[in-house]
């Protein structure tokens, strides 16, 4: 099935064209979450969708060169660490856990910084986990060949 898809020139061209806009849309959703609907989750999923689309059309191995498995896995951890780390930092700055007020001299700015960082952590984790899920499902049963 995959051979058919990747041999179709229309699909490959369209997907190449689509790739960048999807990522940009994802980033928009990520950072515009404060003002409109959206945020880390949605952005993460959209970014992941771009990569999934890519590796669906060009095959798993091609997709792997784009985001190597191991790096993807480490990024999963980085997302969680970023989120939890914000909490630890706020403890360092003599606040409660996840107390963003102390991140900056102005509590309101502190909240902004905190929310952006945290959403970024969520986005990274969601995106990478989704890619990892796709990877595991797609490669299942074929790795031992």
């Amino acid at each position, binding site marked *: 099935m995959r051979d058919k898809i990747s041999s179709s020139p229309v699909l490959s061209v369209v997907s190449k064209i689509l790739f960048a806009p999807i990522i940009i849309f994802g980033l928009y959703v990520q950072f515009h979450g404060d003002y409109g609907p959206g945020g880390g*989750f949605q952005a993460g999923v959209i970014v992941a969708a771009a990569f999934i689309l890519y590796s669906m059309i060009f095959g798993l191995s091609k997709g792997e060169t784009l985001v190597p498995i191991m790096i993807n896995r480490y990024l999963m951890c980085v997302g969680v660490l970023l989120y939890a780390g914000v909490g630890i930092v706020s403890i360092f700055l003599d606040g409660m856990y996840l107390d963003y007020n102390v991140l900056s001299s102005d509590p309101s700015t502190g909240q902004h910084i905190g929310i952006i960082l945290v959403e970024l952590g969520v986005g990274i984790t969601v995106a990478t986990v989704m890619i990892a899920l796709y990877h595991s*499902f797609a490669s299942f049963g074929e790795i031992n060949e």
Partner: protein
Amino acid sequence: MNFLLINFFLISLLLVTTFFIFKTTSLISVVALTGAFTLLCSAIYVNLDAVDVAFTEAAVGSGISTILMVMAAAKLPEGKKNKLINLFPSIILAVAISLILIIIIANLPLLGDPNAPIHLHVVPEYLKESKDFFHIPNVVTNILASYRGFDTLGETIVIFTAGLGVIALLTSNTLNRKTNFKKNKKK
């Protein structure tokens, strides 16, 4: 009034979809119907003014999880038509639960009543502070990341756990060292 009509229409569509999911045996069709189901749900969410939720449901529910289900279904054999098991008890159970729910929901404050306790306690504070303190218009984001930031951390960890679990299940050495997919098939 429009709101209720649309809602009613969408929910009856949901019921129809559920019925067909129940009837269908072909796995791919089931998955496709599930995608439709979640899309309908996100439409309902929009109708209920829950745009963030709708967005997520569309992206996560009908996007990613449908992709995953398709991939799984592609690797699995076609579903077989089996005799229904536990049919009678489950009908009774289903009817009983529905009745209970209907009675209870009749007891809840009316849908959309602005004076329900749910809208009077706690939440007004959120709305006020978002305006005066955060200067961030999307209240959902505020609550998600700040007021209930710990929940969201937990949620991130849930996703992480699931990812880790799936990796451990599907690509780990523990489970794959003995047998191999293809070989099993040939036997």
